């Protein structure tokens, strides 16, 4: 198993991302078992992108609006991470209500190419990584407990790259969720101090227009 073999994989390409993902650099080739365990990963990631590109030309999300940065496949993986990582019940709103996937797509639309590429790749790896931890099936198809176990394993991995993938996707999902006003009542947050109206930036307006948000 990869954990026994220690850190052997690191992101060495862009290195500028919330995941340090692109340009996978296989470090320490002598670690044969490690390599064997992960050998299918790049193919799987590539495959998911090809699949995404062919089968989802419109890239529309479930809310009926276009996705600008994520493919539908990536959005589904992200949604699965969000459902696994975020609280359900206890007065906390659903992932849809807190618009986690939508906001992730929006934020990713405006960052540097290297960051966007790395996070897209991270979602691709996440979707296919469960087999490394003994789970059969893609991440988005697993049950909640299995998903959480995979996320925990990733975040605690001794492999730098896997840690980065797990932690960064989770951190962003949790940021977008708890920053959304729909979650505030459940946390006891009394809202922004001045109770000011939301003031949308040019970029927010542009994104809304391009993705077909209703006014």
């Amino acid at each position, binding site marked *: 198993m990869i954990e026994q073999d220690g850190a052997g994989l690191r992101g060495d390409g862009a290195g500028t991302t919330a995941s340090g993902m692109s340009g996978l650099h296989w470090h320490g080739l002598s670690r044969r078992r490690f390599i064997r365990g992960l050998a299918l990963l790049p193919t799987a990631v590539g495959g998911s992108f090809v699949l995404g590109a062919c089968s989802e030309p419109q890239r529309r999300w479930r809310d009926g609006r276009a996705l600008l940065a994520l493919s539908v496949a990536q959005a589904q993986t992200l949604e699965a991470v969000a459902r696994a990582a975020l609280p359900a019940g206890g007065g906390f709103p659903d992932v849809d209500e807190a618009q986690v996937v939508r906001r992730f797509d929006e934020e990713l639309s405006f960052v540097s190419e290297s960051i966007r590429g790395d996070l897209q790749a991270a979602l691709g790896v996440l979707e296919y990584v469960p087999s490394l931890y003994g789970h059969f099936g893609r991440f988005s198809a697993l049950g909640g407990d299995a998903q959480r176990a995979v996320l925990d394993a990733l975040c605690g991995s001794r492999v*730098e790259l896997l840690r980065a993938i797990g932690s960064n996707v989770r951190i962003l999902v949790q940021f977008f969720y708890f920053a959304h006003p729909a979650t505030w009542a459940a946390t006891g947050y009394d809202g922004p101090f001045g109770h000011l109206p939301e*003031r949308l930036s040019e970029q927010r307006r542009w994104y809304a227009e391009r993705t077909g948000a209703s006014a």
Partner: protein
Amino acid sequence: MSTLLGSHTEARRAGRIVQGHELTESQAIEAEVCVIGSGCGGATVARQLAMAGHDVVVLERGGYYPESSFDQREINMNAKLSADRSMRASADGGTLLLSGQNVGGASVHYWADSYRTPEDRLQLWAERYGVEGHDLARLTPAWDELTGTLNVHPATEDYHNRMNQLLRSGAQQLGWEGHAVPQARKGCVKSGHCMQGCVYRAKQSQLVTHIPQAIDHGARVYADVEAAELLRERGQVRALRARVIDRARNQPSGVELTVRARAFVLAAGGYYSAPFLLRQGLQKQLPMLGRNFGMNPTAMVHGLYDEDIVLWRNIPAAFGVEQFRLARYDAAGAYVEGGYLLMANQIQPGLLGSMMPLMGDALGEWMAQMPRIGGTIAWIDDPADELGELQLARDGTPKVVYPYGPKTQAILRDTIRKQAQLQFAVGARRLLVAGADALQLDSTADLPKIDRLPIRAGGLFMAAPHPSGGCIMGRSARDSVTGPSHRVHGFDNLFVADSSVFPTPVSVDPSFTIMAFSYVAAEHIRQML
């Protein structure tokens, strides 16, 4: 119509902010001095030179967001004020790199802690690195003036929120030295939205101080304009090519500016200045370019209390524990303790939620008690022999390679231990180390667990708000990028004025050091004009 000459003459009479949407045609601009970046470094240089009567143009990659555009919402304001929406991380993916990208730079979302550089650090820089002409005698007049301009004063009692009171009381119980933190504020209403930009103009960021002062003295500030290429002839920069950014798309609009000036000042900030020079192909000429990079990684410990803490109101850092600012080593050189500043944390719900290493219901249980969540944070003084390097990513943006060496790890472990010790001393019921291992501590009996916590990139949830180095100051091109006059080695008229000239981190929050260094830089620039 705005012909080049017309807008130039007009702007000379009255300074102003020109925004990207006003720049519809490519054009040339002339000035005596062109400053790249409008943060603490750039805005201060611009103000000093403009007030001395020089014709200054400032180029700023980010947008101009006046207070009327602020709405105190975390993600909205992060998108307006922060570079790459705070989603850039170190090459190992483990540390989020925080900096500003707007008129005023990081000061618009900073905490306003305004420390003078400790004398021991200035001495180290002078003796080991050859940073001459930046001693206490030289910098003190600048700080004295800045203290007035930015209304810097120690946080008074009513600005200590509950977490700061607890921090102070814990420090007293444990015998740790600490003080009220000097703050750059005027009429603060305690909103707690420093990191979302201050709607009330109370936080004395560059946006409400040096930028308007520079403009009052004729400076022209071009927002949404990214410096791209230095057009040079031997050791002279003749002009600068810049591209206008379409703010709505955050992409180049196709319009270009060519700025001709007698002096060029690079003040793009600790994450961007060295990469800018790397993109000019200067690495061979300046082998130290990108080196000695520090970033004050932060480690946090969250605490659950029996009383309401309300971490998100009042000012962030009213009290600071300074006992551990410098790392201590024993006679044999082994690390003993310290190497960080310890503060109360202040984060709004999005950031707090993101730094919680829990999932599902466990996460919900903590977040449902948010008013009772307190916490501490420490920024470590990166050890000088374990600094990182700034390189270029494939798209030309900064790539931070940071080693997290053994001393750095020891410092991080020590600060987590001390943060836990202090929080238990002041009544925390349970602690949670912000890190992927989700270490929870229920009492002091659990403290030894910290000794077994793996410390590694991506293990702790860390952010790095204080970049330094990459264009360090020193004696010659062999050991540095700039000389003590802030001039880039090998150039007559290219200067650097931001935290990238610091040979090591400052050991306290850096903004006041950056500004005082900019005073010195401005004097040297004036001498060559």
